[in-house]
């Protein structure tokens, strides 16, 4: 390990709990500094009024948002779109990943398409999705599914290649058919790449769906965000962004935990 750190321990005159938990102490200090700086900026008048609203008004907006029943209707719409997009994009990504990862020929013939199309900005497909699926939830689901498809397919294809050949030979020696091979050998052996792909897929699916909602929709959290921009209701916009980030980071952590990613031993 390289030599690091001059700032390795708090000063001797710091309270004992700070010396015992310097990381927590620093975290608290950073949070307090940021919040104080924010509040001072909000009260300074340097920026246009409400561009940086006071913490109190953000807190009030957060409370109002969370206690408003219509918010949950919008949230349900967004969850429905994201859920369906994850199922469609995830399952198709899984199938394509297994097909491509299971054969050298398929890998060399088709994986470059996935590999190079994966990092393209997917939102540019939205006009096409509107034409194909209309302005309702269909186009948002399609956007989410396209976004989710690529990371899942690439991770599963990579995972297929990493499967222990012995396991595959065992399956074949038991004369397992294709379905049995997929469900008994491939899927259990690829649990971590699949979960990793789903985790990445969920992040981009969320982005794809919500961006589509901000562009053209009359329902969903994305619509609420762009509506608060249109009405210049900045405290509500901040509160919605906080809710979105909490949901995104929480869902990401949850998938990782459910999939046991945090239990992988790193050597």
């Amino acid at each position, binding site marked *: *390990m*390289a*030599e*690091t*750190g*001059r*700032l*390795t*321990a708090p000063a001797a005159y710091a309270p004992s709990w700070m010396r015992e938990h*310097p*990381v927590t102490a*620093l*975290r608290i200090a*950073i949070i307090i500094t940021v919040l104080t700086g924010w509040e001072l900026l909000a009260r300074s008048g340097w*920026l246009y009024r409400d*561009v940086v609203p006071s913490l109190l008004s953000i807190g009030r907006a957060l409370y109002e948002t969370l206690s408003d029943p219509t918010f949950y209707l919008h949230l349900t719409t967004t969850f429905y779109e994201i859920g369906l997009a994850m199922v469609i994009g995830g399952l198709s990504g899984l199938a394509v990943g297994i097909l491509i990862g299971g054969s050298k*020929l398929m*890998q*060399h*013939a*088709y994986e*470059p*398409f996935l590999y*190079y*199309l994966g*990092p*393209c*900005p997917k*939102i*540019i*497909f*939205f*006009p*096409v999705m*509107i*034409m*194909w699926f209309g302005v309702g939830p269909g186009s948002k689901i399609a956007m989410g599914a396209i976004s989710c498809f690529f990371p899942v397919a690439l991770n599963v294809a990579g995972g297929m290649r990493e499967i222990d050949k012995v396991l595959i030979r065992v399956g074949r020696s038991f004369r397992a058919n294709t379905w049995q091979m997929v469900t008994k050998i491939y899927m259990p052996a690829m649990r971590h790449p699949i979960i990793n792909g789903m985790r990445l897929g969920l*992040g981009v699916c*969320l*982005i794809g769906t*919500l*961006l589509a909602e*901000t*562009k053209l929709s009359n329902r969903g959290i*994305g619509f609420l*965000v*762009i509506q*608060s*921009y249109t009405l*210049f209701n*900045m405290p509500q*916009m*901040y509160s919605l*962004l906080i809710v*979105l*980030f909490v949901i*995104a*980071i929480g869902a*990401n952590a949850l998938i990782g935990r459910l999939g046991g990613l945090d239990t992988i031993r790193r050597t």
Partner: protein
Amino acid sequence: MSKPAPLTKSRYFPAILGLGSFAAFVLVVEFLVYADVLNRFIVPPPSEVLAAFPRVIMQEHVLSRFVLTASEALAASVLVTIFGIAGGVLLYQFNLLRLATETWVAAVAAAPLVLMYPLYLVIFGRNATTIVMMGFTAGLAPIILKTLEGLVGTRRVLINVGKSFNLTRSQQFWKILFPAALPTIFVGMRLGLIFALINIVGVEYLINFGGLGQLINELAERFDLAGTYAAICFVILVSIIVFMLTERLERWLRPAG
């Protein structure tokens, strides 16, 4: 005389198969549109999309739009590189700060930051600054993490060599740590550039301002279907070329072996 090897054994066969499948798909779509199975007001014939390319390039000023998007991406990349590397070095130098904030930076990297674009519209207005700042925000966290990873991963023996030569802290950094971490830092720069580019084109489309992203939005709003598809293909091509170029550069920088 020996028999020529069959095409399926050729090393070019997979590429031929891939491109051939794509060509076959395009032909099938063309046929289905002409057979009225696919609605041409939803899916234009691929031949029309191909024919729209010169029109889109000439009449829609694709080159100047491309330069605008590229300059926004460049500005965002420069900002991302400067602040990202500085952030990574800062976290490396101060271990306590790293322990306190590394997970936060990783959480930011996973957060859907692009959804902040309405906020940036309010702060910076509907102009190129919003687009550049959005690209910067999206690309910052990966490069901080990769810089940190590169510096932390420097081999102990190299650091000991530096110490045995009594190098100062500055010399140790510039002569040992930074060169050793450079390949990993470049991976971060590449990720940052890709994140920035994705977000820049996306925000251009969403706020209908700027270069290539705006072009797609304009053509779609005019219901110029063939033009919209051609513009989308053009953006995909640009993304692929940028991706391939950065990949080559990364391979070139990576130490052999």
